[in-house]
């Protein structure tokens, strides 16, 4: 079906995949300080997955990671997002309330006022939701690419 690329391309894809994943996770984690966040970081990591799919052929990638793993990843991200929002109802406040901001626990440092140098430990619920959305977008976009490729495969056989 799709051709397997040469050894140089595959080696370059391996090295670059690691760098792209680290960069994408950096964008996801620092969403509350710098431009970026969940969707943007997830899209960057999905680009890395697309690079691996192009370098190796489709059958090898399907052999390495099954489709249902990515579906479970997508659902897990969504459940984490909705779950964090629902916990706020259990604490007596409203849906989506930021119950970790300025509270001293996880991501709970008090935010300095005005232009500052950006502390990672602030933000409250926002970095958790960024991580959830990042996981979800990673799984979702990767599974879109894999399903479209499998659809094209059937055209060749028919």
């Amino acid at each position: 079906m799709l051709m397997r690329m040469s050894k140089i391309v595959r080696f370059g894809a391996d090295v670059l995949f690691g760098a792209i994943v680290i960069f994408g996770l950096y964008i996801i984690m620092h969403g509350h300080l710098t431009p970026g966040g969940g969707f943007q970081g997830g899209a960057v990591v999905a680009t890395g997955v697309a690079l691996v799919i192009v370098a190796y052929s489709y059958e090898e990638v399907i052999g390495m990671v099954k489709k249902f793993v990515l579906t479970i990843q997508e659902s897990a991200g969504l459940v984490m997002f909705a779950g964090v929002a629902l916990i706020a109802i259990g604490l007596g406040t409203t849906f989506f309330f930021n119950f970790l901001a300025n509270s001293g626990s996880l991501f709970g440092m008090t935010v300095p006022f005005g232009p500052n140098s950006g502390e990672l430990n602030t933000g409250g619920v926002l970095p958790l939701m960024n991580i959830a959305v990042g996981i979800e977008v990673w799984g979702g976009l990767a599974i879109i690419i894999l399903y479209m490729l499998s659809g094209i495969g059937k055209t060749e056989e028919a």
Partner: protein
Amino acid sequence: MFWNLPYIAVVILSVIGLATILLKRNLIKIFFGVSILTSAVNLFIIALGYREGGIAPIYTYAVSENMVMATPQALTLTSIVIGVATTALMLSFAVVIYRMYGTVNVDEIRELKE
């Protein structure tokens, strides 16, 4: 006149997008038209938030406190995500239609008649 340039670009892009949707016969080109129209509206919303002399609305290492509006950027981000999902769904439909009908020409995809 110079400050109206983004809005002129919005009008030109949306006219190009609408013309592509209405006049082209290939399904993929119609999807391009939808994408161009979405980009035009996103540009419109971002251009609404500009305040003169403002910098990007980020407090980390900010050089001044005069910033452009941040709400239109959130609206545009949501709209871009919706555009991605819509494009993915439309392209999946195009893949299946090509597999079933053998063509992506709009004039020939007319199985459902009166």
